């Protein structure tokens, strides 16, 4: 196995594009190292992205943010402006693994590992994040929900890497929230995750809302119906119940060691309702 840690995006792309055997990208390694040690993957080439400046920095851009794909989750939590504007994304990032894991894990890695249960992906979907992808053919922008196509599979072409996750500028009274359910309090994988991002109009009603769900389908979902159920309301019980029902209806989960179909469908609604209430309260207090 060959290990490379290039200093630029171009070098990384050229290494990956030129690889003859199987290659893996390391954007923290908190999934990859476990897979390597268990013998689940045996790549010929590992390309470490942690030494590329563009991938390890957060820049504010026209009111929005460009988050390098390999920025650690711990750094997200330490970024005051990002934490203030996108508390839901940051709380999702701070739920991954443990403190130690968060010092390595990244949004790009969490996304491209392509697990249906990735914690940050529903929050990023709710935030309408867009990925900057660079490959041998140049650069393109892809909505975050279009990256993962199936468990363990992405729409990235050979040699392509996600360089940054871009968050749009926020209207003033906007906020997001992310909740996940696990049977323990930490060190676990989401049984269900729900991210809600919303904006309030002058009168305090919701003018725009988006809901992302994780661990309830082969890929994380953008649930437009759930977001729509909140628009025009002040997140009263009826609106929250409607959003919960829409979230549950969108689920297409499996029975596995982490939860049953019935349980996931039910809890997806519960978490969506609760996350929406938190996001609404946060937006209203701005």
């Amino acid at each position: 196995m060959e290990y490379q840690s290039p200093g630029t995006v171009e070098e990384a792309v050229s290494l990956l594009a030129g690889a003859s055997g199987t290659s893996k990208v390391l954007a923290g390694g908190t999934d990859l190292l476990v897979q390597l040690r268990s013998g689940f993957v045996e790549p010929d080439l590992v390309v470490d992205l942690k030494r590329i400046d563009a991938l390890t920095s957060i820049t504010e851009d026209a009111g929005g943010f460009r988050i390098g794909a390999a920025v650690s989750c711990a750094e997200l939590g330490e970024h005051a402006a990002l934490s203030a504007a996108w508390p839901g994304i940051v709380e999702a990032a701070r739920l991954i693994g443990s403190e130690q894991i968060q010092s390595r894990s990244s949004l790009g890695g969490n996304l491209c590992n392509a697990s249906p249960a990735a914690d940050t992906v529903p929050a990023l979907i709710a935030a309408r994040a867009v990925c900057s992808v660079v490959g041998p053919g140049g650069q393109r922008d892809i909505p975050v929900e279009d990256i993962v196509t199936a468990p363990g599979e992405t729409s990235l072409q050979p040699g392509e890497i996600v360089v940054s996750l871009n968050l749009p500028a926020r209207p003033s009274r906007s906020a997001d929230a992310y909740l996940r359910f696990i049977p323990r309090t930490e060190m676990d994988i989401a049984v269900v995750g729900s991210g809600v991002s919303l904006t309030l109009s002058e009168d305090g009603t919701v003018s725009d809302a988006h809901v992302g769900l994780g661990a309830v389908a082969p890929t994380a979902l953008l649930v437009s119906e759930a977001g729509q159920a909140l628009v025009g309301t002040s997140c009263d019980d009826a609106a929250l119940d409607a959003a919960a029902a829409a979230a549950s209806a969108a689920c297409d989960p499996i029975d596995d060691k982490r939860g049953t179909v019935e349980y996931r469908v039910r809890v997806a609604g519960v978490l969506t309702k609760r996350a929406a209430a938190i996001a609404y309260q946060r937006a209203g207090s701005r």
Partner: protein
Amino acid sequence: MTYEDGKLKVVGTRPIRPDGVDKVTGRANFGADHSMPGMLWGRILRSPHAHARITGIDVSKAEALPGVKAVVTGADMAESSGSADAGESAINLRDLSRNVLAHDKVLYDGHAIAAIAATSDKIAREALKLIDVGYEVLPHVMDVDEAMKPDAPLLHDDMFTEGIEPTPETSSNIAKKMVIGFGDVDDGFAKADVIIERTLKTAPVHQGYIEPHACVATISEDGQAVVWCSSQGQFVIRDLCSQLLGMEAADVRVIPAEIGGGFGGKTTVYLEPVALMLSQKSSRPVKMTMTRGEVFRATGPTSASSMDVKIGATRDGRITAASAEFRFQAGAFPGSPVGAACMASFAPYDLENVSITGYDVVTNGPKVAAYRAPGAPQGAYAVETVVDELAEALNMDPVDFRALNGAREGTKAPYGATFKVVGNLECLEATKDHPHYKSNLGPDQGRGVASGFWFNIGGQSAATVAINPDGTVSVVEGNPDIGGSRASMAMMAAEVFGVAVEKVRPMIADTASIAHNDVTGGSRVTFATGMAVVQASEDAVEQLKKRAAKMWDVEVEDVVWQDGAAHTATKDAPLTLADIAAQAGRTGGPITGNASINARGAGPAFTTHICDVEVDRETGAVEILRYTAIQDAGKAIHPSFVEGQMQGGVAQGVGWALNEEYIYSTDGNMENPGFLDYRMPVASDLPMIDTVVIEVPNPSHPFGVRGVGEAPIVPPLAAVANAVYDAVGVRMTELPISPPRLLAAIDAYKAAAE
């Protein structure tokens, strides 16, 4: 000799543990830390099937791989018979041999089939893929109730249920039936005003020790073998290896490593005989370590259980009769702890009429191993749930109900013994008086209590103390330290000698350096080995007095030992231990003390726990809000370690109650062989666990010690379940109380109420 509580100077204090610095700095050597020149790496090929006949094993391609130095299979093992004494229980050697390497059938997912030693771990892993095994896959059975049915797939054609007269003529998965009790339960139930009867089930759970099994073994050309490994008893490892491989005990020297948790699961062998076989074949030392997946799939969980419990009481709260049937899953070979479950579960109660039946049942899972108070947590979960329900039906406080019917001095236990001095009622009284029990609860919160019992054992222990020329003391004993026992040994010796504990260094010797010691198990070490250390220290004190008499030229009868020195009426200045030690060469040579005992009179442990929970009614999640464990320790030698044992037992018991379970696919493969999906509690899942140490001294021990390590895992399963009931009104009769299961039960309860 006994020691008065008020005059103790070391016992009951909290010094730094002698092994602490090495453990927190990473210097301590655990099972996988030993290495040797020329060492090979061993790996095991394991069954992918829950039940299959092996039609052939072709190892030729693996043997031909460069770097592979030895391959062994079950065919390389001598045929074993008879049983070995493992301290707490007898081990059937024929079954053990077949568990270590399958002979003709694989009986569970993960069952060892063949092993390889190679010059690198990578080559050994590669070589495993080159072994061709032919399987004829057979139907399997996992559930204990299913396994007992007449048409269930049979694991062993030659198994006929023991304990039934006459012995059945058809084979079955029921290895053994047992019945204990006394009185007339039919008559007792006839006198009851209220009878509660429930069926409850628990899942298989693993001990979850952090350190996976690991060893290094070497055999030289003259047949002398050395094994370095982490275990709960170097002597049981030696005896099992030598008996399985047809060697003499003196030819196998086992050197104990530090142990990273055992909880009963490291009282038998898995890797050690295989590493010895590989070493014999390759003439090289062989190191073997298990992955976490191997630990889960192939080493001892404890039994899943299915239990019926029935208890009747009069309107004024007196229990008139109790009966139970316990069906315990043993895994692939007989030997579940159902016997202990039968004996222990009703022991907190003073009963007139009791009848308990137990079944030991084989299933296609790993052979169960001992786990902290084996059998008692399952049984207590069933009994204490029914007791809680009965108290409620009688409109009585659950602690008062337990105290009214509580076992006390003179109570005849269901297993026949009559209790001497025990602390059951003292624990219940302390529970009732505790601020926790009197505190208020909020919405969706509930409180549960449960009691527990454990026998504790004594057994064989040997100890030697040596007085060093500078007056320091070396204590040599033979029990691996899994709960702070080295500290306790040093403290008890220091108390006898009357010196500071820092002057005493405890050491755990290998099998060639001290006489036999039973395993570290049964909560026996501080009691039994502690007694041996006390007696060896007293032996040395006698020697010291004789030497002092010689130095003073007085009669030894005129010498007394006090505060670390010899005193005699005719001399003003005493002779300290250091004074005498310095002159040992001139007064007769080195000074030692020895004791070899079979300790009797282990005092049983009683305990009561209080648990508060909050239930999220929309997700079924249970949060442990507050937890208090009250236990009679007899006498706490080092109170911090007694408290630590109590807290650790609660943590494991809470895991058992809420989330831990073996999850199997329909093919019988374990789906969660790792700590991610086998959900033991993490630190943030638990509040600080409060402890109350009750001290009702055990008259059989010089300091009054009772074993403490096992009893604390007995009550939590029921305490949590009773608290959940109190919070949401749902009786959880199956563990774990995982969120999906609890949410479904809450829904069903709501639906029934509407």
